């Protein structure tokens, strides 16, 4: 059954966006023409080294070797120069994949399988320790599963960083005829793509994590609330869920445990606010994505009024690793109260943009230069937005910050979901500040006044400042408006929209003159 040669060509969105499908077709045609029956094309996920995508790999006795970025027109010369035998003579040769420094320096736990396996091959998943966490969880009492997650120190990777185990404890302790596990896969922050990559490269990891969560708290139904903007993730998740059902990893009797867990993907419909957990629940119920006041917390009154775990994709996927390898293994990584690893996402104007999973504590500067390689276009970097559209802009003087929840908070910055968007020196920070307000105008759910009206006024005031109209007064007005939004909004949308604006005013005031 196993063919002699395996050629790996990624199928995740970003690789496809760089032409991976054309490359796959070119390989298929070339292999057909050569009459060689001993080569199989595997469509893997991506390793997250995106400047090298489409990155094609081949098995060799020494390990997998890589070539990239490959275009369809390179396929002929690659094969002619012995690529199928793993020869490294071609200009696109990258050597052993695992030895590429960008990858070698990382600590891949959540993303251990990304780019290595065929995402919809259950055999591949099982061969890489998949479902060992679930098998262990089946042997444990629900409280013991929750204890393991608490012990690991895992905090919500969606951005709010709430301890996952504590949330689970609340749901476990709640009495109800029906409980739910909801995966927040509405990854709306610009500069973030880790959830997408996880779902497209290792969907069974998420499915396993959700199933463990179900066993832990006594929930039988799970929903993955996926953003509509991720069509490839949708396809891959649906495929993987069907395979898991056929093989009793989901359904009435999960692996003969006598416990049921069902899972379904539900699509969002382009609303950033639905990444906020209560708006997400409203949306799942078929309503407008309006934020609910808390309390009650979703852990007690969540989806359809029932106790509900709402966790991010990465949090749930990481649970599978924690159960497989133990809490002690996981918490050995990281620092202070930020334990484990964080998948940072390097985006925007960086030469080597991609996914970097490292223990908490790496500095922003190391991410930007040691990994990111500086700017994409060779100009000096000037400003970095961390933590998505609601995160602050950091000037160069702050780039020595260690990337963990508390160190970032001490700067008034946020780590959020781990996105890092770099801008070169052509950036107009007043324009960026305006965009933050404008984004809030477009995406506010409209429930509370500071967010709904404040953002519109924010755009207007920034326009006046940029036009040079009563500059001093209007800056003061903008500062006051920001304070009102921070203090008076119901959720993070209005409450954090001012963060990028305030940081732009503080650190890049010259752009407002």
């Amino acid at each position: 059954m196993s063919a002699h040669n395996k050629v790996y060509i990624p199928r995740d969105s970003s690789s496809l966006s760089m032409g991976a499908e054309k490359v796959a077709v070119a390989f298929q045609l070339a292999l057909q023409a050569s009459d060689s029956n001993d080569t199989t094309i595997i469509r893997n996920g991506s390793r997250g080294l995106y400047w090298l995508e489409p990155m094609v790999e081949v098995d060799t006795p020494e390990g997998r070797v890589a070539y990239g970025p490959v275009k369809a027109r390179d396929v002929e010369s690659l094969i002619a120069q012995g690529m199928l035998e793993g020869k490294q003579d071609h200009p696109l040769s990258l050597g052993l994949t695992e030895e590429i420094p960008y990858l070698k320096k990382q600590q891949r736990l959540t993303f251990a399988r990304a780019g290595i396996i065929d995402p919809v091959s259950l055999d591949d998943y099982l061969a890489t320790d998949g479902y060992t966490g679930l098998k262990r969880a089946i042997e444990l009492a629900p409280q013991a599963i929750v204890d393991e997650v608490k012990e690991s120190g895992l905090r919500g990777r969606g951005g709010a960083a709430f301890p996952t185990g504590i949330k689970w404890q609340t749901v476990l302790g709640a009495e109800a005829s029906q409980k739910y596990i909801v995966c927040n896969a509405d990854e709306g922050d610009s500069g973030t793509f880790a959830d997408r990559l996880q779902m497209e490269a290792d969907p069974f990891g998420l499915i396993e994590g959700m199933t463990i969560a179900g066993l832990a708290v006594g929930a039988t139904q799970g929903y993955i609330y996926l953003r509509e903007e991720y069509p490839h993730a949708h396809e891959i998740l649906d495929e993987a869920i069907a395979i898991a059902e056929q093989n009793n990893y989901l359904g009435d009797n999960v692996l003969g445990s006598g416990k049921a867990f069902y899972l379904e993907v539900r699509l969002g419909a382009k609303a950033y606010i639905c990444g906020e957990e209560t708006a997400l629940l409203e949306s799942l119920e078929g309503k407008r994505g309006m934020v609910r006041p808390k309390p009650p917390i979703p852990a007690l009154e969540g989806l359809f009024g029932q106790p509900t775990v709402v966790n991010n994709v990465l949090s749930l996927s990481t649970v599978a690793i924690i159960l497989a390898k133990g809490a002690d293994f996981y918490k050995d990584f990281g620092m202070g109260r930020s334990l484990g690893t964080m998948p940072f996402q390097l985006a925007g104007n960086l030469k080597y943009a991609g996914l970097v999973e490292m223990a908490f504590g790496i500095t922003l500067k190391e991410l930007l230069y040691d990994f990111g390689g500086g700017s994409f276009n060779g100009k000096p970097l000037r400003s970095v937005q961390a933590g998505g559209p609601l995160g602050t802009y950091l000037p160069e003087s702050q780039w020595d910050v260690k990337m963990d929840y508390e160190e970032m908070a001490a700067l008034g910055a946020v780590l959020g979901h781990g996105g890092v968007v770099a801008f070169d020196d052509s950036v107009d920070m007043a324009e960026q500040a305006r965009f933050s307000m404008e984004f809030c105008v477009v995406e506010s759910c409209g429930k509370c006044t500071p967010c709904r009206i404040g953002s519109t006024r924010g755009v207007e005031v920034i326009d006046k400042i940029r036009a040079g109209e009563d500059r001093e007064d209007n800056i003061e007005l903008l500062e006051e408006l920001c304070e009102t939004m921070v203090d008076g909004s119901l959720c993070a949308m209005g409450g954090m929209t001012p963060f990028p604006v305030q940081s732009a005013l503080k650190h890049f005031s010259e752009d407002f003159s």
Partner: protein
Amino acid sequence: MSSSLPNATPSKAVAVDAAHLSAITSHIDNNEQKPGPLLPILHDIQNDIGYIPDAAISEISKRLNLSRAEVHGVVSFYHHFSTKPRGRHIVEVCCAESCQALGGRDLQKHAKEKLGLDWYQTSKDGEITLEPVYCLGNCACSPAVRVGKQILGRVDNEDFDELIEELTTVPVTLMEGR
């Protein structure tokens, strides 16, 4: 082989709501047992018909025991749902920060000029609707554009023009009358 070719698809505007009714009914049938069925129903209708016709709002409100206002409120809340017919291709240009950092604003401007459209407008020949999108998760390959299920990375103005050329070129032998 240029964008001036006549549109091969019949104008959706003339399709009477009634003609959609059986499709709408079957999408409701397929989803109404689900808890919270409204979004799945709307997605199926829009995927099938291209937008959410008025008849759908009436029918859904009857079947799900909601007021028309409630259904309309949901449809209008989400940027994804459209209550009027759109083009054969929906071209979405990412407007978020990562793409801004690599020329996304220029690309937005170019796209609007090239097509002579503002956001959410449809070309006269019914081929293309231009929409903004806030992040496609392709931030390591900015700027990004989406057409249907296809996502494109590192898109410059020339790439965009090529894309539009491809989308508006109808292969003569494969002309389809959908």
